[in-house]
């Protein structure tokens, strides 16, 4: 036991050398493209490019819609994660699998599915248009598309945290006289706060990067549905330098998000 601990401290890892070599290739596959795009940035024109009216419209829209969809993910995803983690019912496994579907579904397929749900001829869309509500090709559609693809991140992250925390603290809280709402507010949610925070951050990042479902379901109208990824795709042909500059903005946001997401669990554990 102590010898094994000593071996660990001395740095014995038991990983074959060729595995390390492959790992280096894998890391390079991720890091090299990032370096490449940074190298391609036209620095003298960087500021004018990212502050053009089109760019600012797109950036503002992206931040607003991503914030809204992250909020929606929290409001809808926390109850869903609680139900999946804490209760038992028929079809639970199926529901969990279906909730994960947007993670693996091509976003463009998700966009089509949303179109046939909320579009004018869609499942709910016809009812909504009778009420005078038009969702497809509006900013609301952007938020719905982002929520659709980002919700699984929050649910998976939170459900994992809930399962790790276990229900023993909740049982003790209940026997101490706490009503279910009090238990949720004062025990459950504080216990899983790190998981909730990283789930929310991941949802925000996924919303910010959403492209396929947005384009299919919401279109690309400047200031209304043209988010930053759509603007980048559009500029790629017209002005590659602008596309690269805007890409760097998204990259910086992504780096910030990852930094936050990876720091919060450790802070929670300390």
């Amino acid at each position, binding site marked *: 036991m102590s010898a094994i601990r000593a071996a660990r401290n001395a740095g014995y890892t038991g990983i074959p050398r060729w595995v390390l070599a492959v790992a280096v290739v894998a890391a390079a596959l991720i890091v090299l493209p990032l370096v490449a795009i940074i190298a391609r940035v036209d620095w003298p024109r960087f500021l004018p490019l990212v502050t053009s009216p089109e760019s600012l419209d797109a950036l503002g829209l992206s931040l607003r819609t991503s914030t809204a969809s992250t909020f929606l993910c929290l409001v809808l995803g926390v109850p869903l994660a609680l139900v999946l983690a804490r209760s038992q019912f028929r079809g639970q496994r199926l529901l969990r699998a279906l909730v994960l579907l947007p993670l693996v579904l091509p976003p463009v397929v998700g966009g089509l599915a949303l179109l046939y749900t909320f579009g004018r001829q869609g499942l709910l869309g016809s009812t909504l248009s009778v009420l005078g509500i038009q969702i497809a090709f509006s900013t609301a559609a952007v938020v719905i598309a982002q929520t659709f693809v980002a919700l699984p991140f929050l649910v998976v992250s939170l459900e994992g945290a809930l399962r790790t925390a276990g229900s*023993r*603290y909740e*049982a*003790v*809280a*209940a*026997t*101490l*006289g*706490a*009503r*279910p709402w*009090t*238990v949720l507010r*004062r*025990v459950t949610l*504080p*216990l899983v*706060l790190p998981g909730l925070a990283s789930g929310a951050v991941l949802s925000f990042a996924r919303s910010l990067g959403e492209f396929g479902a947005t384009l299919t379901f919401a279109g690309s109208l400047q200031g209304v549905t043209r988010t930053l990824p759509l603007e980048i795709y559009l500029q790629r042909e017209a002005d590659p330098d602008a596309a690269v500059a805007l890409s760097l903005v998204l990259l910086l946001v992504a780096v910030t998000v990852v930094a936050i997401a990876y720091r919060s669990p450790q802070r929670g554990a300390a």
Partner: protein
Amino acid sequence: MTFSVEAKIRDRDFDVQLAVAPGETVAVMGPNGAGKSSLLGVIAGLLKPDSGSAESNGRTLFRLDGGTHRWEPPHRRGTVLLAQEPLLFPHLSALENAAFAPRSAGVPAAKAREVAGQWLAAVDMADLAGRKPGELSGGQAQRVAVARALAADPDLLLLDEPLAALDITSAPLLRRLLKKVLAGRRAIIVTHDVLDALMLADRVVILDAGRIVEAGPVREVLGQPRSRFAAGLSGVNFVTGTLTTSGVRAPDGFEFHGHQDLAAATETGADGVAVFPPSAVSVFLEPAHGSPRNSFPVTVAHLEPHGDQIRVRAAGGHQLAADVTPQATAELGLVPGMRVYFVVKAGAVSVYPA
């Protein structure tokens, strides 16, 4: 106003009835998997039995019989659970933990903190009120858990092996504390330690395979055990069989001569037990003669240290044990597998109906 519960759980073959008087502390003991924690779970409302009912101070906690289906949730039962691990809420300070129950009951924050402070003082934890659970030792955390449980002012306190996870120095401290706070309080304590039962409980209930096999005042159950588990707790040899004129005849035909403790005449042929301490058993290489003595051949199964004696355990169904001095062990050359004779005076064997 008593507390009473009866519950059946088919899957676990659990069928228990228990009543606890006001101010009474009942110890629940039994082998692993006997259903001790299930019992607490059912009472606390964390485990739903198939049928049964429970009442506390005239209030129905649950009634699951035929047509009626009443099931009060845990937070409306007044039964607080104190587990083996403290399970203090890690994001709250010791004081906020102790104030949790009053706060949940709607007591204003300032008043709840005052109550919590008083309970922390009662468990000698007032100095560390501001600490987070992560900054407390196991014993300190369990003391805060006791304060948190008592601050709820429970009708019935449920303790599930509260000392089992503590180290050898903190356990006696907390046991003394529990003795102080359990006095005059209605509680059920599940424990593996006979010392807990002796010190903390008025009555002991022995649970085995989901049934209560023995119940009574702690001294009585330990003094005259009627189950193998209770006999094991008090560390005596325990033989079951049928009563004869002079003792108990075991199923294998061997008769243990002894003296009847009870004045009441008991008919021969009824179920009976013979009980004698290992210290009353001598070990010989040859059968010992002369009445009134019991002398029976056994095979030594193993030897183990027991205080300043050596405990010789015999193989076979009766699980007999004898305590001999290390010197005698050496002189007799006792080793596992050896055939020897266990000899015990009839006067040292207590016989009573099962």
